[in-house]
């Protein structure tokens, strides 16, 4: 049996995400979440992402809880037929406690399916 080593649980959900790039060929882009946790999210996007890139993500959960321009860093990347799958971690400036509470509440209410 595989042990779950993450500090925060992940929830599978496909939410549109807006991405802002501080540098690079694009200023902004978009994608979708594959899963979300209080620490970060797995994002799929056609816009190029590289490990260690700093990006700002904006997304709104189903209950209307909106997170705008969260500073995050790309920690891993994979590629599937035109889409970059990027594991991104929120920076410390993000209020993780609030996010954890929101995501946990949504999970309990069934808005966000558990992975």
């Amino acid at each position, binding site marked *: 049996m595989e042990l779950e080593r993450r500090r925060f649980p992940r929830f599978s959900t496909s939410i549109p995400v*807006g991405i802002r790039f501080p540098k690079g060929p694009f200023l*902004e882009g978009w994608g*979708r979440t594959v899963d979300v946790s209080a620490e970060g999210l797995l994002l799929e996007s056609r816009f190029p992402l590289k490990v260690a890139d700093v990006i700002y993500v904006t997304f709104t959960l189903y209950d209307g809880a909106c997170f705008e321009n969260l500073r995050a860093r790309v920690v891993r990347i994979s590629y*599937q*037929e*035109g889409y970059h799958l990027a594991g991104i971690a929120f920076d410390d400036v993000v209020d993780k406690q609030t996010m954890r509470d929101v995501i946990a509440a949504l999970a309990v209410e069934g808005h966000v399916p558990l992975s």
Partner: protein
Amino acid sequence: MSRVLLAGLTGKDNDRLQKIYEAVGTPCEVVPTVDGAMERIPANPPALVVVKYDGHLEPIHGVAEVLRTSAPVTAMIAILPDPKLEVAVRVMRAGAYDCLAPTLKPFDVLAASKRAASQKGRALFVAKVERPKKRWVPVTGILISLIVAGNLFLRVFYGPPLDQISLASAHLTGLQWEDRLLWVGDWFESNILCYRVKPGVLKRFRELEATALYKMADGQPMLLCNTPSALVTIGTDLKMRSHQRMVGLPTVQTSSIPGTRPTGLVWDGKNVWTSDGDENSIYRYGEDFKVIETVKSIIPNPMGLAYDKNALWVLGGTPLRLAKLEKMAYGFVWRGPYDVKNLLIEGVTPSGMAIGFNRLWLISGGYPIMASSSLAELTRKASGWFQKESSKRAG
């Protein structure tokens, strides 16, 4: 068979998308309006709906609702007028899986379509979506070829003139090439002429055209050289003068020269040099036209002097020979001599010498033709000695 429904798109976008999908063997159905698409979808659900976003979310919501109720395994992607983040997120929240923006690149269209369909469990096409490889090699190759071809063309276009040129005067003395300019003195007319080599693809088009003519008021030029600050001449009165380059060639400075038969006058970038046919010597002058260095010529009776590529070239002797004088840290080194054949008519003495376009140019008194020969060919084989010669400094 999986098909794509194109709804509410312009004719241009329809054509473009149809081409892209047909390239992977996926048929398209075009419905001019979104309302038409909403009627068509329940009747025959496609694998993917591509909808144009025209600034209103209602049609997107409408299609999403139809898909949810009548075609739950059909995905939707939207075409945006501009790639704006806020718009894209709004449209995706309304039900589109992804948004595309102009220009609709085949790679992006196919990647988004395949992924959107596969998220609903549909296989739109099997071909793997791969980013088109960047054609660096051909592009770089073409660029390099263009640069090389351009360079070659410019080298030809700005190449040397004909090997033999008629200067239409039999009283010419003193020659100096200065890039594409040729300075010539006419002792009889007391003129100094400046010619320019016309650019041209063929040698015969690269003629000399006169660009300036200066009449000397106080002398007849035997020899001349152009320096950045003044035009320097040696006249038939054996005086060296520096002139302002203006009408009448006003004399700025006059000085006597050593020897009685001056045969060459050049500027090496720092100093003026002269040669004397009787003294067998070459002289270097300071700014005040005082001799600061004397070098014995290894060629007897020097008849001409030229400067090219950090070396002085001396012409003289019988038969005519050429030698090169290079300045080293420890003194001067002579290289050569090299035979100079068939450049002038037998028995005619050169009255002017210059080096330009990697060629040796000679002109003779009483003969209006300036003839040239490749310096590389002339200096291929030395015909005798190789000797170091120390100089004698004045003072």
